[in-house]
C-alpha cells in the first residue's frame, strides 16, 4: 500500500499569487498606517500619544460621534427608502419599472461631489427649490448640517438597498406567503412576520454597505455638513495639510474609522448567523396588478423616490449647459463650459479612461480567478481568503489613499505620484466586488460541467477556459462594466494620491466645486455621467442575456 501522491493543481498557484497580491497591495500599505499610528512623527519612537491625542481632543471626539451619526443616519434613511421602493417595484406591476431600476443605478453611480453641490443649489440657503417653497409659504430650513448630510446619504445610497432587497424579494417563494395567509395571517402582518425575515440577509448586507459608504464619504460632510466634521474629513485635513500636517494622528483617526467598520461587520455577521434559508424556488412571485388609489399612490411614491435620487444628476446636466462668464453663471444656455473643459481639462478625461480601463482589466483577470477559488475550491485557505477580501470593503478610500502614499513614498516601491499607484488602489478596492460577483455566477454553474471536460482529456486550466468561462462570460462582462463605472467615479483615494499630471475627472470636479467653478464641474460631471450611463446600459443588457442563460442552467441542474 503506497500513499497516493497529491496531484499538481494549478489553482494552488493561483491561490498563492492571490495572497501575494493581497499582501503587497493591501496588507503591506495598511501596515504603514498601523505603524504610523503608533509612531511619533518627529522622533520615530513607539508611542501611544497619537491615540491619546485622538481621545483627548474634543474635536476628534465629536468627529467620532458624528461619524456614527452619519453612518447610522445614512443607513437608516437608505433602508427605509430602499426597502419601500423594493417592495413597491418587486411585488407590484409598476409601469416603467425597468426604467426606475436603471435610474436608481444611475443615481447610485452619479459622480460624487457634484451631488452635494446640486443639493446646495436646490436646497441651500439661497436654493432654487427652497426659494420656490418659501414663496409658496413652506419654510424649509437650508440643507446644511447634520440633517442635510443624512438626507444626502439616504438619497445617494438607497439604490444599493433597493437593488439588493428587490432581488431577495423576487426570490421568496410565494407559497410561503400564501401558507401564512392560509393559516389566517392578514397581509400586513404577513409582510413583517414572514417576508421581511426571509430577506433579512439581503437587508443586513445592504445595511452594512450603506453604513460603510456613509462613514467613508467625506465630500458630503465637507460641502453640506458645515461644521459637522467626521473622522474622514478630519483625517484628510490632517494628512493633506501643507503645513502642520500630522500623519501620526491622521493614521490613528484612520484606525478608528476601520475599527467602526469592523464592529459593524461583526454585527452584520451576528445578525445573519442563523439565516440559512435555502431558496426553494419552485415558483417565482408574480407581480401584483394594482388598481385605483393604491395603484396611483404606489406609482407616485416609486417615481418620487427615484426622481429625487436623480436630482443631482439632472441638475448637473442642466447647469453644464448654462452660459458662463468665468466662474459666474449668466442667463441663458450655451456650450461655454464644454469649450473650457475640452480646451483645458482633456488630460483628466483621458486619465480617467486609461486608468479605469487598465484597472478593470486587472480586476476582471484576477477577480475571475479568485471568484473561482471562492466558489469551487472551498477550504480553510479560501475561507481565509474570503475574509481577507472583506478588508478593502471596509477600509474607506481616504484611508486606503493615506496608506498607499505612506507606504509607497519610499523604496523598495517608491511609486507615489505615478499613475500606477492610482490604478493599483482602484484595483485593490474593487477587486472584492468582482471576485464575489464571479463567485456567485459560478455557483449557478454545475462544477460537474468542468469535470466532464477534464474527464474527456482537457487539462484543468483548459477545462476552465473552455467550459466555465464561456458560461459565466456575460456575468463577468457585466461585472467588468460595473467595475469600470465605479473605477471611473473613484474619488477619495485618488484625491489623496493624485499629482498634477495624474488628476482624474472626479478629482477635477471636486477641485472645481471647491474653486467655485460650477460650470466646469457640471460639464465634467455630465461627461462622466454620460460615460457611466453608457456602461450601465450595456451591463444591463448583458445581465438580461445572462438571466436567460441562468434559466437554462437552472433547468440543467434540476
Amino acid at each position, binding site marked *: 500500500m503506497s500513499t497516493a501522491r497529491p496531484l499538481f493543481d494549478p489553482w494552488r498557484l493561483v491561490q498563492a499569487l492571490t495572497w501575494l497580491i493581497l499582501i503587497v497591495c493591501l496588507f503591506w500599505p495598511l501596515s504603514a498606517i498601523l505603524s504610523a499610528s503608533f509612531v511619533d512623527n518627529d522622533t520615530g519612537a513607539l508611542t501611544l500619544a497619537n491615540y491619546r491625542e485622538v481621545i483627548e481632543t474634543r474635536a476628534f471626539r465629536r468627529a467620532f460621534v458624528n461619524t456614527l451619526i452619519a453612518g447610522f443616519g445614512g443607513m437608516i434613511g437608505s433602508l427605509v427608502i430602499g426597502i419601500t421602493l423594493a417592495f413597491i417595484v418587486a411585488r407590484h406591476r409598476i409601469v416603467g419599472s425597468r426604467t426606475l431600476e436603471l435610474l436608481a443605478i444611475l443615481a447610485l453611480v452619479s459622480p460624487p461631489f457634484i451631488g452635494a453641490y446640486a443639493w446646495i443649489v436646490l436646497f441651500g440657503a439661497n436654493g432654487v427649490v427652497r426659494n420656490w417653497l418659501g414663496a409658496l409659504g413652506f419654510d424649509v430650513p437650508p440643507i446644511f448640517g447634520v440633517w442635510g448630510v443624512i438626507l444626502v446619504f439616504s438619497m445617494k445610497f438607497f439604490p444599493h438597498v433597493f437593488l439588493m432587497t428587490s432581488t431577495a424579494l423576487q426570490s421568496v417563494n410565494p407559497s410561503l406567503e400564501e401558507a401564512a395567509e392560509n393559516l389566517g395571517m392578514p397581509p400586513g402582518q404577513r409582510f413583517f412576520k414572514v417576508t421581511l425575515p426571509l430577506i433579512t440577509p439581503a437587508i443586513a448586507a445592504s445595511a452594512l454597505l450603506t453604513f460603510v459608504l456613509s462613514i467613508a464619504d467625506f465630500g458630503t460632510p465637507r460641502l453640506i455638513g458645515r461644521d459637522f466634521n467626521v473622522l474622514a474629513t478630519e483625517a484628510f485635513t490632517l494628512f493633506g495639510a501643507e503645513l502642520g500636517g500630522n500623519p501620526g494622528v491622521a493614521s490613528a483617526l484612520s484606525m478608528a474609522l476601520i475599527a467602526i467598520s469592523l464592529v459593524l461587520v461583526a454585527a452584520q455577521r451576528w445578525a445573519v448567523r442563523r439565516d440559512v434559508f435555502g431558496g426553494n424556488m419552485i415558483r417565482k412571485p408574480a407581480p401584483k396588478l394594482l388598481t385605483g388609489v393604491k395603484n396611483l399612490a404606489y406609482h407616485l411614491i416609486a417615481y418620487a423616490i427615484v426622481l429625487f435620487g436623480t436630482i443631482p444628476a439632472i441638475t448637473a446636466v442642466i447647469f453644464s449647459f448654462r452660459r458662463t462668464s468665468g466662474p459666474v453663471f449668466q442667463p441663458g444656455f450655451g456650450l461655454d463650459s464644454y469649450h473650457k473643459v475640452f480646451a483645458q481639462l482633456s488630460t483628466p478625461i483621458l486619465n480617467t479612461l486609461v486608468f479605469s480601463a487598465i484597472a478593470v482589466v486587472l480586476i476582471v483577470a484576477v477577480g475571475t480567478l479568485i471568484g473561482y477559488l471562492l466558489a469551487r475550491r472551498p477550504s480553510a485557505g479560501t475561507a481565509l481568503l474570503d475574509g481577507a477580501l472583506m478588508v478593502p470593503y471596509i477600509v474607506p478610500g481616504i484611508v486606503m489613499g493615506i496608506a498607499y502614499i505612506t507606504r509607497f513614498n519610499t523604496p523598495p516601491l517608491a511609486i507615489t505620484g505615478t499613475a500606477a499607484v492610482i490604478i493599483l488602489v482602484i484595483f485593490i478596492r474593487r477587486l472584492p466586488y468582482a471576485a464575489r460577483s464571479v463567485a456567485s455566477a459560478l455557483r449557478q454553474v454545475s462544477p460537474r460541467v468542468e469535470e*466532464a471536460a477534464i*474527464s474527456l482529456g*482537457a487539462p484543468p486550466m483548459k477545462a476552465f477556459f473552455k467550459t466555465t468561462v464561456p458560461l459565466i462570460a456575460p456575468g463577468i462582462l457585466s461585472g467588468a462594466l460595473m467595475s469600470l463605472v465605479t473605477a471611473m467615479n473613484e474619488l477619495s483615494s485618488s484625491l489623496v494620491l493624485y499629482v498634477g499630471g495624474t488628476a482624474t475627472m472626479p478629482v477635477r470636479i471636486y477641485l472645481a466645486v471647491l474653486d467655485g467653478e460650477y460650470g466646469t464641474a457640471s460639464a465634467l460631471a455630465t461627461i462622466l455621467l454620460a460615460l457611466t450611463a453608457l456602461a450601465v446600459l450595456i451591463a444591463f443588457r448583458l445581465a438580461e442575456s445572462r438571466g436567460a442563460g441562468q434559466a437554462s442552467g437552472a433547468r440543467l441542474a434540476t
Partner: protein
Amino acid sequence: MQACKVSLGKKRRGHVLADRLTISGTAKSFAGIAVLKGIDLTIEPGEFFTLLGPSGCGKTTLLRIIAGFLAADSGSIALGSERLDHKPAHQRDIGMVFQDYAVFPHLTVADNVGFGLKLRQVPKAELNARVDEALRMVQLDRLGARYPSELSGGQQQRVGIARAMVIRPRLLLMDEPLSNLDAKLRLELRDDIRQLQKKLAIATIYVTHDQEEALAISDRICVMNGGVAEQVGTPTEIYRQPRRRFAAAFVGTTNFIKASVEGGRVALGGAHLPLAKAADGPVEIGIRPEHVRVMAASAGAAGMPALEGKVARFTYLGTHGLAVVATEHGEIIAQVHDLDGAAACEGATVRVVLPVDRLMVFDAAGNRVEIAA
C-alpha cells in the same frame, strides 16, 4: 442471472482493452471523518460493476477518486500494470457520466459529443463520423445541431453518455446517471446503457443507491456501507446469499428475527438449528418475504420453525399480496399468493412457517453464520 465475464483480448486503436482495474487499500477522510476505510476491488475487462449503497456510504467518493477528481489518502489504483492515481484526471482516459448530466450548455449536441475527440486532435472527417455514430447509438441522430436547453432530461443524459463513450475510454464511470429522470425514462435508458456497454465492452463502474437498478444492470455488485465494501458478488449471489446483514437488509426486503444461541444451536419457533460455526450471544435470523409461508393456525409445520401470529395488515398488489403478521418475535412480512386464504384476512390467527433452507443467520457483528445440514 449469471455473470458472463467478457474477456476481450482484441486490440482497438492501439490500446489493449484486457486490462483489469485494481483498487487496493484506497482510503479517504474528510476533516477527520473516514469516508473510505480501505477499499480493495478488482474490476474485470468489459465488466459492468456497480457500487451500491445508501447515501454517505462512500461510493461516489470512490468513483471520484478513480476519475482523479479527488486524491485518496492512501492506497493505489492501477489499470493493468499502470498506476492511474499518479496521473492527473485529464490524462487518465476515463469516460464519466454525471448525475446532473453536465452537458456543456453553450455547445451544440454535436460539439458536446465531439469535445473529447477534438482534444485528442482526431481529424475532422473521422471526428464527424464518430460523432454521428455515437449520436446514432444513443438515438439522438438528427439532433446534433440542437442546444442542450432544447432537449429533455433523458436526451441530455444520452448526450452525456455519447460524449463519454465516443472517446473509447479505457474505463467508463457512471455516477447515478438515472437518478434525475422519471421512472419510465429510467427503465428505458437503463436497458439502453446495458446494451451499449455490452456492445462496446468498456469496463464500467456504475454508482447507484437503487438496489433494483443495481440488480438489473450489473455483472457484479459491490454493496458498500460506512466506507467499507460489505460484499462483492453477482446480483444472484448478493440477493440469494448475502454474506452480511447489511447486504441482506439493503438489497431487497428481509425480515429479521432476534434469537439467541445456546450450545451451538439457535432456538426458533420450536426448532433448534445447529450452527456450522460456534457463535455466541444474540444472533439475528433473516428471511425474505417470498420465502415465508403463512398457513392456517391448525396446519402442521412438519418440523420447520413456526410462529403463531395474527394478520395485522394486508396489502393487495394484484399478482400477489403482502401480509404483515404480528408474532411474539415482532412483525413478519410475508408474500402471499393465495389471495383468498387466511393470510389475506386481517385479524385472522395464522401460523408463520420459516423453511430452514431459506434462513440466514447473522452474528452480532453482522457476519453470516451457516446453519449446519
